[in-house]
Each structure stands twice: as structure tokens, then as C-alpha cells.
């Protein structure tokens, strides 16, 4: 009995609060919070929503996204240990017991959905639950290890936050949140493939069928250009459809054109620097575009 208790103590002894925080993928969470807030910001009726409830909606969105990230890390702990980019995460480092990580993720996910439903509405809660389930079961457990289209289809999970932010305020989904969804959906492949280009050896070692691994760098670069070309008219849609001002249109046009140029530079150069630059720019692009949506 004593031995069992001692073993349990040793098993969980190294986990600190910051390890649990790292399980939530804080960088991804910041993007989710920002795009979710943009969806909430442009939703009609924000002014008549109690500020505390709006805060709770953001908290639920952040916690839900973090919970999905924790479950993703639990499931992927075997390949995370192989990849240089992820080997320092708490699970492959052995800092957190896998069962604890899974429990942590499930509890946070359930709580975030329930709280969203109680505080705001069940439409937003339902989309949050669907996004989490999609990320865990469709992307993490199925697509990621089975098809080069993993992040194309799986990217939908990351595109839900503006819809959730919008639905938290209005209780429904209209055309505008769907456009925001589409922007993130088509942004995801060039963003991830830029990363995949310079982390290709990692993905090869872990046997993840990323586009760069299965189809090669050349084919991936062509597809990256194609997605950035789709993003140009798509990013202009909020202005063309009258949701945003001409100022937004100008900013979106410039940002998307630069994104296309960065994809072309990746295609033209054999070295990895343009891919690294494009990855960095893609993060800036999404932040800047949604900031433009908010001020537009």
C-alpha cells in the first residue's frame, strides 16, 4: 500500500503549474482568443451583452481550445517525443502523467462547454463542443496520421473561434461569421505547410504524412500559392459584401498580396529561410486581418 502511494507520488511529482499551462498550447490559444474576440466584436448586439458574460465567453473559448490542445498532446505524446519541435513538451519529457493530462483536458473541455451554455447560449456551446470533438477525433486521432490533407480538413477546427464568438452574442450563425470561418480555413494550409517545409525531417521521422513528406516540397509550394490566391478575394469579401469599410478592403488587399508574394518567394528559393519568413508572416497576417475586421 505504502509502495503504491509512493509510486504515485513519484509519478506526479515533477508536474508544476506551468507544465499544466503548457499543455493548453498558450500560443495557439492566443490566436483562438483573438479571432474569437473579433467574431464577438463585429456581432450585432455586443453592446447589450453584459461585459462579464462577454468575458466568460472568451474564457470558455480559451479554456475549450486549451483543453483540446491538452488531449491532442496526450494522444500525440509518442510522436511528440520523436520530433525536435515538440520533444520538450511536458508529456514527452515525463513531467506529467498521461492519465492526468487526459483527465485535465476532458474536465476543462466539459466545463468550458457547460459554462458557455449556462452563461451565454447553447448554440455557442454546441459549436464549441463540436470544434473540440472535431479537433480531437477527426484531426488528431484520424486525419493527422493518415492523410496529407490532414491540416486542410483538420484546419476547420481552428476556424471555428470567430463563429463561436459571434454565436455567443447573437445565438445564431449568419454569412459574416461563415466568411471569417472560411478565411481561417484557407489560411491554415499555407501556414502549416510553411512550418512543415522547415520541419520536414521531424515529420518524416515521426511518420506523419504531411504534404511535404508525401508529395514533396515542390508540389506543396504550388499548393501554398494556390491557397494564398484563394485568400485574396476571400479576405476582401467582408468589404465587398458591405460588412466592412473600404479601409478594411485596402488593408486586407495589401496583407493578402504580401502573403501571395511570400508564397511565391518560398516557391522560387530552394533554401528554408523564405518558408520560415512565410510562417512568421502568416501569424502576423491573421492577427492583422482580424484586427482590421475589428476596426473596419
Amino acid at each position: 500500500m505504502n509502495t503504491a502511494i509512493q509510486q504515485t507520488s513519484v509519478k506526479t511529482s515533477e508536474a508544476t503549474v506551468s507544465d499544466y499551462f503548457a499543455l493548453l498550447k498558450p500560443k495557439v490559444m492566443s490566436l483562438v482568443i483573438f479571432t474569437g474576440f473579433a467574431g464577438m466584436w463585429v456581432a450585432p448586439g455586443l453592446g447589450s451583452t453584459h461585459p462579464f458574460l462577454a468575458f466568460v465567453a472568451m474564457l470558455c473559448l480559451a479554456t475549450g481550445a486549451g483543453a483540446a490542445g491538452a488531449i491532442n498532446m496526450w494522444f500525440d505524446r509518442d510522436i511528440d517525443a520523436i520530433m525536435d519541435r515538440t520533444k520538450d513538451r511536458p508529456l514527452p519529457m515525463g513531467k506529467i502523467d498521461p492519465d492526468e493530462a487526459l483527465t485535465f483536458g476532458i474536465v476543462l473541455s466539459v466545463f468550458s462547454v457547460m459554462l458557455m451554455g449556462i452563461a451565454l447560449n447553447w448554440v455557442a456551446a454546441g459549436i464549441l463542443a463540436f470544434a473540440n470533438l472535431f479537433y480531437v477525433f477527426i484531426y488528431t486521432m484520424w486525419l493527422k496520421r493518415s492523410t496529407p490533407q490532414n491540416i486542410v480538413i483538420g484546419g476547420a477546427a481552428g476556424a471555428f473561434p470567430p463563429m463561436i464568438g459571434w454565436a455567443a452574442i447573437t445565438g445564431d450563425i449568419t454569412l459574416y461569421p461563415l466568411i471569417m470561418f472560411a478565411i481561417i480555413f484557407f489560411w491554415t494550409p499555407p501556414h502549416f505547410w510553411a512550418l512543415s517545409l522547415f520541419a520536414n525531417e521531424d515529420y518524416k521521422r515521426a511518420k506523419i504524412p504531411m504534404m511535404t513528406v508525401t508529395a514533396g516540397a515542390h508540389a506543396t509550394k504550388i499548393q501554398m500559392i494556390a491557397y494564398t490566391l484563394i485568400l485574396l478575394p476571400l479576405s476582401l469579401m467582408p468589404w465587398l459584401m458591405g460588412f466592412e469599410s473600404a479601409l478594411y478592403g485596402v488593408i486586407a488587399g495589401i496583407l493578402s498580396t504580401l502573403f501571395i508574394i511570400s508564397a511565391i518567394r518560398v516557391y522560387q528559393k530552394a533554401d528554408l529561410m523564405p518558408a520560415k519568413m512565410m510562417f512568421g508572416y502568416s501569424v502576423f497576417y491573421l492577427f492583422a486581418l482580424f484586427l482590421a475586421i475589428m476596426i473596419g
Partner: protein
Amino acid sequence: MPHSDLHKQKLKKNLAVLAMIIGFIAIIWVITMIRIAGG
């Protein structure tokens, strides 16, 4: 008994869990008050 690093680490974790529970209860309480007030 002197506190070891393990004790300190577990105390931090337990305090974080306590803060989360108190925070959750406080959030539910405030939501209830807002709902009662018709918000």
C-alpha cells in the same frame, strides 16, 4: 518537518486547483446574479 521541494511543488499545484475551484464558483455566482437581474 522541513518542507521538501516535492512538498512545495505539490502545495503550489493544490493552491492552483483551489484557485480554479473558487474562481469557477465565483463565476457561476456572478452569472446567476446577472441572470436574476435580467442581464
